[in-house]
């Protein structure tokens, strides 16, 4: 039972890493970016290519995946996304779905539609068992432990950046009132560019980390888009902790549901989401007076 709980937590944390970038772009920049999964897919594919064709070690691949998708995000932000900021949400949704469709077809064209497999280094493959044979048996895959560690580090780092640094306060100022922020001498465009790049980079990192656990093939962005959106919608978009808790809840519910009642695997997650959103339309954890 503890094993399931642990797997659920690890899975939830993976979802969090994947989705937190989206919560940054969607919550802070108020842009509904359904193409987020495409950036994650780019990160995943980058890792696979670097490892298999060029023999780059896994640990080095992670920052490279981050940088690669961040760069792509920056380029796209400057060229395509910026004119869309002022458009209605529906246009943003359609625009980003269009990007996703394109990404799916391009990946299919270059890498075929088959699944890509990541070979983990030896030291991440093992598994630690605690309390053998009892009802409270806990089995922890080393890779999942690794994911949890990365996630904790990321959360602390993000929280610090957003609440303690000069960049964080500039970002919050730009979000709350672009014109006033610009009047105070903040380069709003640069702030948004950096934020969007960071969000895309986080997606890429999540994709790289998740390539082993999730199925990485060209339909990746569409398949997991729903999960990212659930995390962000349920968690609320105004903080880092909201999506984290939502991702954990979702991960545990999903893993436990698939284990105990496999007949209705994904059903539980969607059901949970609808109930929560009807109950609290702004998400579970919303800062009072925050931007809706």
């Amino acid at each position, binding site marked *: 039972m503890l094993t399931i709980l642990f797997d659920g937590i690890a899975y939830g944390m993976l979802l969090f890493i994947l989705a937190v970038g989206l919560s940054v772009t*969607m919550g802070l920049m108020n842009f*509904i970016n359904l193409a987020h999964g495409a950036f994650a897919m780019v990160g995943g594919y980058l890792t696979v290519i670097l490892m298999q064709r060029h023999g780059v070690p896994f640990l080095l691949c992670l920052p490279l995946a981050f940088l690669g998708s961040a760069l792509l995000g920056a380029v796209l932000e400057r060229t*395509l996304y910026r*004119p*869309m900021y002022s*458009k209605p*949400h*529906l*246009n*943003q*949704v*359609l*625009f980003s*779905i*269009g*990007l*996703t*469709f*394109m*990404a*799916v*077809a*391009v990946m*299919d*064209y270059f890498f075929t539609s088959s699944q890509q497999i990541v070979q983990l280094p030896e030291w991440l493959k093992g598994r630690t068992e605690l309390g053998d044979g009892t009802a409270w048996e806990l089995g922890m895959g080393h890779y999942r432990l690794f994911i949890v560690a990365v996630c904790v580090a990321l959360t602390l780092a993000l929280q610090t950046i957003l609440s303690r640094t000069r960049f964080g306060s500039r970002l919050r100022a730009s979000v709350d009132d672009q014109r006033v922020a610009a009047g105070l001498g903040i380069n709003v465009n640069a702030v948004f560019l950096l934020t969007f790049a960071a969000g895309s980079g986080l997606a890429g990192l999540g994709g790289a980390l998740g390539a082993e656990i999730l199925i990485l093939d060209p339909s990746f962005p*569409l398949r997991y888009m*729903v999960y990212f*959106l*659930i995390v962000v*919608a349920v968690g609320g978009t105004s903080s880092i902790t909201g999506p984290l808790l939502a991702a954990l809840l979702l991960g545990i519910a999903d893993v436990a549901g698939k284990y105990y009642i496999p*007949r*209705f*695997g*994904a*059903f539980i997650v*969607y*059901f949970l*989401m*609808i109930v929560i*959103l*009807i109950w609290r*339309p*702004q998400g579970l954890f919303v800062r009072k007076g925050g931007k*809706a």
Partner: protein
Amino acid sequence: MNATSSLHEFQRWKRWEPVFWLLALASPWWLSGHALLINEVAIVALFALSLDLIMGYAGIVSLGHAAFFGMGAYAAALFAKHIHPDPVLGLLFGIAVSTVLGAVASLSIMRGTSLTLLMVTMGVALILMELANKLNWLTGGADGLQGVIMGPVLGRFEFDLYGQVAAWYSLVVLFVFFLLSRRFVHSPLGGTLMALRDNRLRAQSIGIPVAARLALIYTIAAGVAGAAGALLAQTTSFASVEVFAFDRSADLVLLVVIGGAGWLYGGVIGAVIFKVLQDWISSITPQYWTFWIGLFLVVLMLVGRERVIRPWTWISRGKKK
């Protein structure tokens, strides 16, 4: 001009409209080789009409409209398989089932921002897809529901291999629903919908029961979408979990936007453009159709629909620079 006469002015038929419908209803004749495509277009047009009712007239954005489409499809297919093979009865049954579902689901659309709305509508469709997938004994699971045999329409017209009867059947149903929707949105009741689309708070303050109206239009639209789904199941003698797919909902929003929302012809024209484009592109590059539709979508959103369909404005924009 007083209010009544301005409403009457709105609902008067324009001169080109009868021509449009005559051409459409005659199309299985003069395009007899494309009857299957015409059938598909008519079904998608009906589905788009339904989305336009909620999106264009009531401002409800949905990424899960396929829920009702799929419900109608399964209901009609199961009805034909287990109860009675008559298409019209099956159609009515499909409409009834999806209308009930719409009434239940309308409870979920009252609250929240556009994001919540997108998520909840999508969630409903995904839950139904999951159900259709898991309820093997009823729906045939991932393989789809096979062995649906349809009787002749009105007891006289057998469905033929070339799809002519199917095309007529779908076109007539589309036409009937179009007339009903046209009548509805031009009625005072339809007017209140547009009022609450434009400003919900103001609509409420002049005494329009917002929640009740939203629920009403959502339920009606669900029924229309169910009719489209039923037509698909009946004319293809097949229903699969794919009817609930997210792509279907997304494509639908797209084609209503192409055709223009809040104008009943928008969905119909969008459906024609979209399906013909799809047919054409996928005959050239069958595998990468999604790339082109994606590109189209991105360009459409960046440039703006108004400018894409009015090429002459491209030049004047260049002059300004």
